[in-house]
């Protein structure tokens, strides 16, 4: 059974790595600062919304890009949404791919779009796993009697 100190250390190291590797940016910290005693699960709630929304958008994008005649406006609209929501939660790497993705939409280059779609799916899966691990570590710490670090 890990001690509170060990868990705190683990959480701190993990958190640092997420920022260092650009999975998350400053916006995620802004989210954490909005949580308080009356809204303790705010971050988890927002991130869950992001997961649901992204799953839906990625499905839509896959469908749209596999049409014989790709509707680039529609594709762009979906990417715009994904870019917005990833930006709102601080998922920087996902957001960055969306920017490149939109450029390919504008130029109406299907191969470019398909490539970006694959990249954004990869990045999304990565950040999703990272965030789920982060929340798990936080819960472990709290369950062991520790308190979450100051943001």
């Amino acid at each position, binding site marked *: 059974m890990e001690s509170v100190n060990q868990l705190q250390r683990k959480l701190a190291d993990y958190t640092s790595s997420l920022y260092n590797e650009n999975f998350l940016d400053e*916006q995620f910290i*802004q*989210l*954490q*600062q*909005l*949580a*308080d*005693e*009356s*809204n*303790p*699960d*705010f971050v988890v*709630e*927002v991130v869950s*919304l*992001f997961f649901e*929304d992204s799953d839906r958008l990625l499905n839509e994008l896959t469908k749209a890009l596999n049409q014989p005649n790709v509707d680039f406006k529609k594709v762009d609209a979906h990417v*715009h*949404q994904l*870019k*917005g*929501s990833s*930006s*709102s*939660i*601080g998922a920087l790497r996902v957001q960055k791919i969306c920017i490149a993705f939109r450029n390919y939409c504008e130029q109406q280059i299907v191969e470019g779009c398909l490539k970006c779609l694959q990249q954004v799916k990869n990045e999304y899966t990565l950040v999703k796993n990272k965030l789920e691990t982060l929340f798990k570590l936080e819960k472990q710490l*709290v*369950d*062991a*009697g520790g*308190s*979450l*670090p*100051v*943001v």
Partner: protein
Amino acid sequence: MGMVAAEQQFHVLAVDDSLIDRKLIERLFRTSACQVTTVDSGSKALEFLGFQENDHNHPNPPCVSPHNHQEVEINLIITDYCMPGMTGYDLLKKIKESSSFRNIPVVIMSSENVPSRINRCLEEGAEEFFLKPVRLSDVNKLKPHMMKTKCKSFHEPEKIVTKENQESPEIEKVPSEQSQPQPKTELDTEQIQQIQQSQGNNNKRKSIEEGLSPERTRPRYSSLTTV
């Protein structure tokens, strides 16, 4: 003064087609002790306001007050720019063309930094244009705009009655990045105290008004003690 805090609380109408952004903006304003209503489109916003199309002939359009025919008193409208159907700009125009609603401050948000878009909105009467993601520091800038809409309320001492283009917010405590005068009306301090007491978290208000505070704790689970 025996004032009910809710009467003095600002009510914000937030318009955004993104569920995540609605949740965020709601939290930002609730953290700043505002009441928030969120809607997902411009047309729903107008509906909420009780907007009627032929609304141009009011002789002396009042500032937002309990006595006009607006259904709900709104002190600020904050809207996303890019929305399907009615854009934030379209909504802004409708508001500013309306005699009943033109005095409500409108703020536009956008994820895209397009100078011509920003200028257009400001020229049309938007008070501020925020780039997303919106932060607490942005929201803090809005209190003076919201105060203007309380100007005709009979609760307010004369001091608060509209000063033209007042730049220095009277309500806020001195934020760390600006030097502001600190005149505070009794009413205002009491209002903040009432809200602080009901929220039971003075740290939170301090962190809002002083920017990011390193002392702020995040006591999410501290009430849980497990053996």
